């Protein structure tokens, strides 16, 4: 039990740092933690990873709302909605997203716990036609609810899709837009695209924003929440978390798009996105421990470490894991809400010092992290060249809503993959 608590504490600490520092990301956290986790038991690695992703979603919401910077792609809807949120509602929104996230996490963990023995039925959500439908639906939603006009947002989506297709395509077995550069066969790096084409333009825009940390009063009152709606966001987030390649990102985008159809209230939209990603943080674990199917790269690292220690994915192992860890995971969610609400004042103290300096610091940290990793991978020249080009593009797009571009980039390979697969399945 003590070692499980140790694993959770370590995961929660890393998750807190990952969430607070935008752009650090769960993948980077797992890459850095992997050497330390290599000696742990599969259950402890699972608990570490589950705590990491859950807590990073809680603390990530805080930093995103107070700085307007989305390090994790699951925060993209919140950043897009933030300029429309009245400053007076910031404090209450923080509390509401924290409590909503807690409810989502508890509901999702409970569902997994109760239905542990029947979780293999989740594979039906992963059918090609259903996933394709969700992709198209989300794409339409991103275009429709962009703050730009539909022509601009469609154009940006197409640019994102084009950017995402760069590299060696295993479907078509050919290089696309690599211009003979072997480094480009792996595609344009995701961390660079997120940094230069999303975080950077947001940062440029928010520097001139009237919203500052000093004007945000923290609400100590229990937030006003429609729990039926929170349950609905949780359900949507839970299904969205099963999306290969996107997981929590898709949870928040899907829930946000659905909420945009029913309300213009920015607070409600943010709650829907931030609640859903916590449900997705739980459901994304299901394919990993039942089918050995890692939905996102960070999960692939967690799974490979678990497998190295003798873990075999199966219904039985999933049932055992969820049954034995449910209460611990609920404990993590409670810790998350404490960090993201009552203790948020501690985080604010850091942010209040100098917001512009803080943002510049974050940007510098991100740039240095990426450059350090590229140095380790002997890939510095390529990364620097890409960074220069993408920063230029990011500066050009600083007045645009680049959510669609990022979404197009993230799903482009899968759109082609699923499109071709549907053709071979049904024609």
């Amino acid at each position, binding site marked *: 039990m003590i070692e499980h608590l140790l694993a959770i504490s370590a995961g929660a600490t890393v998750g807190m740092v990952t969430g607070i520092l935008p752009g650090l990301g769960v993948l980077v956290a797992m890459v850095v933690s992997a050497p330390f986790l*290599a000696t742990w038991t599969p259950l402890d690695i699972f608990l570490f990873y589950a705590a990491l992703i859950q807590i990073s979603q809680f603390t990530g919401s805080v930093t995103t709302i107070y700085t307007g910077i989305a390090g994790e792609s699951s925060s993209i809807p919140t950043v897009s909605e933030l300029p429309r949120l009245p400053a007076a509602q910031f404090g209450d929104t923080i509390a509401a997203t924290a409590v909503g996230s807690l409810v989502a996490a508890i509901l999702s963990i409970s569902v997994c716990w109760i239905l542990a023995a029947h979780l*293999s039925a989740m*594979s*039906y959500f*992963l*059918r*090609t036609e259903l996933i394709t439908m969700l992709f198209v639906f989300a794409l339409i939603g991103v275009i429709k609810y962009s703050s730009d006009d539909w022509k601009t947002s469609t154009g940006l989506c197409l640019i994102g899709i084009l950017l995402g297709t760069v590299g*060696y395509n*295993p*479907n078509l*077995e*050919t*290089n696309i837009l690599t211009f003979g550069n*072997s*480094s480009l*066969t*792996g595609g344009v790096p995701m961390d660079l695209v997120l940094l230069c084409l999303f975080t950077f333009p947001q940062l440029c825009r928010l520097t001139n924003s009237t919203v500052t940390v000093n004007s945000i009063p923290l609400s100590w009152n229990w937030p006003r929440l429609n729990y039926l709606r929170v349950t609905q966001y949780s359900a949507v987030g839970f299904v969205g978390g099963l999306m*290969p*390649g996107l997981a929590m990102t898709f949870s928040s985008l899907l829930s946000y798009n659905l909420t945009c159809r029913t309300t213009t209230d920015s607070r409600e939209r943010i709650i829907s996105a931030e609640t859903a990603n916590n449900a997705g943080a739980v459901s994304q674990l299901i*394919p990993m421990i039942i*089918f*050995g*199917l*890692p939905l996102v*790269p960070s999960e*692939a*690292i967690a799974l*490979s470490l678990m*497998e*190295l*220690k*003798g873990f*075999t*994915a*199966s*219904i*039985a192992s999933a049932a055992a894991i969820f049954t034995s860890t449910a209460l611990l995971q609920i404990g993590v969610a409670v810790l998350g809400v404490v960090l993201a609400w009552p203790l948020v004042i501690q985080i604010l103290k850091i942010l209040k010092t100098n917001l512009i300096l803080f943002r510049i610091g974050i940007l510098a940290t991100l740039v240095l992290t990426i450059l350090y990793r590229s140095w*380790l*991978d*002997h*890939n510095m020249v390529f990364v620097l060249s890409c960074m220069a080009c993408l920063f230029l593009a990011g500066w050009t797009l600083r007045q645009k809503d680049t959510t669609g571009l990022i979404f197009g980039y993230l799903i482009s*390979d899968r759109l082609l*993959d699923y499109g*071709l*697969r549907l053709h*071979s*399945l049904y024609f």
Partner: protein
Amino acid sequence: MKKLLALFAVAIMTFSAAAQNITIVNTGSKTGGFYLETNAFSQDLQNEFKIDYINPGQSCLAIDIVNKVDKNIPVLFLWETNFEGTARRHSTCPVKFTEKELIRVHYDAFYICSAKPEMNADRLIAAGSSYKIGHPIPAGVMANSITKGINASFKTSHKPVFYADGASSIITAMLNGEVDYGMLSSKQAVKFAQSGHGTCMYRMDTSSADTSIPLAAKDLANKNIRAGYYVAFILKNATDAQRAKIQTAIKNAHLNPNSNTAKIWEGTRVKFEWDTKMSTFNQEWEDSVKSFDLK
């Protein structure tokens, strides 16, 4: 005191000399099968060697790094006929190696599995049958093993369905009924069977060391039924003594059931060769590369 310090210095120098440097480069994706294996033996070897592990996540970039490593430092990497075929087709980063540079070789054949109890071995090769078979990358080659291999030999009309995300997606597609059969590598086939979700009935080769049926043995004339690839452990820049020491260390890790390397291959019947002769192996390697080099 001086003697003690001198002894300490000698001890440190001896220890430093014992910890020989090796660079290990992962030529596969950042989190795929090659990463798992190189990461496993990096951990197993770290007590004997000072290891510099590089994981660029892209095969040609990795080969570029291999070529740039200091020529006095041994560099170890995995290379498979699938990568070589693709590299030759696009004239990107083909790899040449000598017998002395080969540390270990194995052939990994694909298995045909199903999650549906009614989809047994006989139904797959029954003349006139038509089922959907999920397969991994490279798409063209794997589809060929179904259309020009199984369909041509057994007069069937199975439909190949391609899954870019690899084995885990194929397993999911088998479980949700999207495909009737799926092609899995030996490691994945063992895990799939152990999980209790289904069975693996055929090995797409001319022989089989386990209970699966060697499918290619049913029609030896049709080489397209054989689906799999050779994987070579290649060690560059090493002297004979260094090669012997590194090969022994890797072999010991393989033979130790508690090592990380052994766990990677747990349950499989893959045969590893440690003293491969290029005179016989070269032709097998080239034939396998050609099967992946579809112009």
